[in-house]
């Protein structure tokens, strides 16, 4: 099959099935890391640091802090990659259960930060955001469940998956953290979709969602509604919640094809942009490196996603495939939602640009995800066929 041949050629050396002549494994194979993916991620993180330098008002401290986070996240990735997928398969229900319990705990005793309960804190020890963990735990739980089913899934299995997904998503949404709850939900739904959810059901769900929108609207918090309304017409509140979007589109638009040059973005350097080194970092990029730079960046993401999908389809069992596919597609959703919101085609939800936005938690989660992805790929023969 040309598909497999292509993947083999990318891997460089064909890996023999068990029973073949044992070959000396490369360093990458021994540490269970995919060099291509790693290379692409490093390029991305490197450019991320450059952008952060500019977006932070040229603060070396911020860049160093971010570099340290990247380092920690990379170590986490390598460590996670050493675990076998069987480990993830076994522990997925445990992680899921703990995660749900912690979400309940957050709801009861969580710290209130930025008007939302998101953090669980053991004072002086750790500050933890359980919803972040659920980005990985929920899709893995769904994959683990589906792994035990005959695929494509039957209606009963899908209903069970719906419950598995719905509980944590509802808890996260109640924090309230609409962005994360949607991301967790999409990560898990992607698993179901990849498992072969029938098109008829997909269509039905779409219709249900569309008709359920008014209900959803009524249950949104005021600020969430405001965000959506502002998205539809940012000029209605130019100095309030519309400010961000007006300023970010202005920054991007004024960048033009070639950009104003690194560190030369007037919008971003002059503090017109809010959250410019976190969620709105794309605006800095768009202004300073222009359309060309943005296309290069998006192409880089596209390469990572392609490589991830290839690795996923290389996996030799359904659990690995589903988890890997979910991880990489969720990664893309991050990119799409972030760029979409900053460029004004999606409402503003707090989604960072993966591995570019400043912030430790999301980097760690993402790279742990890539670690799992690499583990699944590198240990693919260790799962029963």
């Amino acid at each position, binding site marked *: 099959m040309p598909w497999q041949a292509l993947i083999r050629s990318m891997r460089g050396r064909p890996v023999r099935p068990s029973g073949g002549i044992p070959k000396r494994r490369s360093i990458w194979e021994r540490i269970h890391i995919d060099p291509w993916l790693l290379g692409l991620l490093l390029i991305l993180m490197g450019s991320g640091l450059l952008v952060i330098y500019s977006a932070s008002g040229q603060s070396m401290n911020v860049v160093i802090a971010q570099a340290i986070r990247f380092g920690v996240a990379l170590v986490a990735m390598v460590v996670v990659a050493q675990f076998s997928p069987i480990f993830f398969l076994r522990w997925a229900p445990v992680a899921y259960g703990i995660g749900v319990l912690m979400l309940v705990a957050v709801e009861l005793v969580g710290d209130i930060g930025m008007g939302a309960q998101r953090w669980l804190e053991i004072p002086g020890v750790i500050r933890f955001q359980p919803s972040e963990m659920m980005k990985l735990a929920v899709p893995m739980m769904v994959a683990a469940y589906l792994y035990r*089913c*005959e695929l494509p899934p039957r209606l009963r299995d899908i209903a069970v998956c719906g419950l598995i997904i719905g509980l944590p998503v509802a808890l996260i949404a109640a924090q309230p953290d609409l962005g994360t709850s949607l991301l967790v939900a999409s990560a898990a739904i992607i698993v179901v*979709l990849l498992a072969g959810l029938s098109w008829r059901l997909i269509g039905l769900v779409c219709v249900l969602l569309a008709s359920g929108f008014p209900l959803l609207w009524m249950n949104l918090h005021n600020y969430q509604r405001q965000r959506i309304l502002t998205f539809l017409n940012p000029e209605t509140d130019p100095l309030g919640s519309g400010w961000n979007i007006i300023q970010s589109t202005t920054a991007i638009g004024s960048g033009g*094809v070639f950009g104003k040059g690194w560190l030369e973005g007037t919008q971003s350097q002059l503090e017109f942009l809010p959250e410019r080194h976190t969620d709105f970092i794309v605006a800095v990029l768009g*202004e300073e490196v222009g359309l060309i730079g943005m296309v290069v960046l998006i192409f880089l993401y596209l390469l990572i996603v392609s490589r991830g999908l290839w690795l996923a389809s290389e996996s030799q069992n359904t659990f690995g495939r589903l988890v890997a596919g979910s991880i990489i597609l969720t990664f893309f959703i991050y990119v799409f939602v972030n*760029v979409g919101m900053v*460029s*004004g085609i999606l409402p503003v939800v707090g989604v960072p640009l993966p591995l570019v936005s400043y912030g430790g938690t999301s980097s760690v989660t993402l790279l742990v995800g890539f670690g799992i992805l690499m583990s699944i790929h590198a240990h693919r023969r260790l799962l029963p066929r």
Partner: protein
Amino acid sequence: MPPRSDKLKNTEQELRIFRARALLAFVVVVALTSLLVGRLAYLQVVQHDVYSTRSEKNRVRVEPLPPNRGLIYDRNGVLLAENRPTYNLTLVRERSENVDETLKLLVELLELNGEETSTFYERSQQWQRPFQPVLLASDLSEEQIARLAVNRHQLPGVEVEAQLLRYYPDAEVMAHALGYVGRINAEELANLDATRYAGTHFIGKTGIERFYEDELHGQAGLRRVETNARGRVLRELGRTDPVPGKDLTLTLDSSLQMLAYELMDGRRGSIVAIEPGSGEILAMVSTPGFDSNQFVTGIDRASYQALQENLNLPLFNRATRGHYPPGSTIKPFLALGGLVDGAITPDTTINDPGYYQLPNDSRRYRNWLRWGHGRVDLERSIAVSNNTFYYSLAHEMGIDSLHEQMTNFGFGQRVAHDVQSQSSGLMPSREWKRERFNQSWYPGETLSVGIGQGYWQVTPLQLATATATLANRGQWVKPRMARQIGDTPLELDLPDTPDDINLAQDSWWDSVFSGMEKVVSGSEGTARRTGEGLEYRMGGKSGTAQVFSLGQDQRYDADELEERLRDHALFIAFAPIEDPQIAVSVIVENAGGGSTHAAHLARAMTDEWLLDDDAPEVDEVRETLETDNSNVEGN
């Protein structure tokens, strides 16, 4: 969880399903990526110009640079109005963590009283653009600034800004002459040249400050600055410097002004002094004065109410707007009018039996001396202030001629060049009466006018102006306050100067002057006490005005009422006669019968101006006033 059963699984089918879905996902990813790129291309290529402009507008702000207001000096270079740096308190709400807490703390730190606190909170509620500083308090004291500095860390968003504020060192003395600046109000704002006044908060409200507003204000400058979203200026891109307002040198002599103010001490009234040769106003005082500095920063309600309700009307500029019957002070002018008209000559005499009767009328118009002055000529008529002579003269002239002649001396007209809001007074005429009362003029009314009563009303400034013109032997010079604007002397030949007054013979002036000299120096002079020890020749004329109410004064108690029913004392003077250097008009309200009070003040003024070191001290003048209770003149 269902047990995993490899028997039931079709691994090949699962792989096939997954690959199909993954491929589909990839297609969707590419499609969505294209959507993003399309959106970016739309923003960065199609809409690039729109957003470039918007971005430029965002960061470049044009800031006005208000010009410094011109300073005002007196004729000797004494600073009368300066600009003093003061400190204002501002708050940027968006930078404050807790506005309410901050305001509370500020009230505590500044030790504001009740009214100040409410004003303070009122101001804090004023609408502002986000990130614009709100002015909370102006003119902070040193101590307040220090307290703010100490507590700075507790007050994010609070700033103390320096600003130049008008300051009048001798506010009370100069208040009416200079006027004052105040905050530009909404009405003024609507009529102002917005560009010129960009960044300016103050405008001349009254007096010289208002009249020379254009010159004093200057031209606003601009600077283009790059700012961040918080409005903090990061760098300057370009600038046009403001053109500072021109300094103004006034004709006022601050020491003479000061003396005039002190002479009036505790009295209501006015003193105006003019240099006859040039028309320069040397002093222009209206008492009581007020602290004009209060109006610059914005006077508080209680103080303003107190000023407004003060029965002495400190806010009222008596010098330019006070209406008084001139009484006998106009007798020299009437004599001159009669000479011009030909109704009399310097040799004309009348016999005064103590009254005057119109032909075919039994009514007697009385002289102030019941038994009459006997034979009275022009000179004596002035010296003893004989009424009968002027009844007769007024009757001879008739109201039409009288009106015309007196108008030539500036009565009933606004004659001063640069005095803001001067009143025209009232010089009655047939036409005026017809218009005002729809009545014809009666001959008896002419007689009243003939002794400076009736409808005739003058302002102290008019009286001084007429005296200066008289001292000038009829040569008109417009009175004015400005000597030099910037480096340019004010044109000497001012536009629209009234026609000079010409007598048939120049020596006739001497007759009138002689009469006026006898007022102070003659044995019969009504103000002969004032002339004692005079070191130069001075011409003067006393006057007594029956009380004219300034209005609004309905709540007198008995003592107050009595005091306020007393006559006003008036006096005009010029000196030295042979070469007049100063002409003065003095009006002291309710100074009582006789005009000695006003005469002594006029003398003190001329002494001060002419004698330099020999001039008497204010205390000596006061002593004289106390001891001199002579009441030598009736009307």
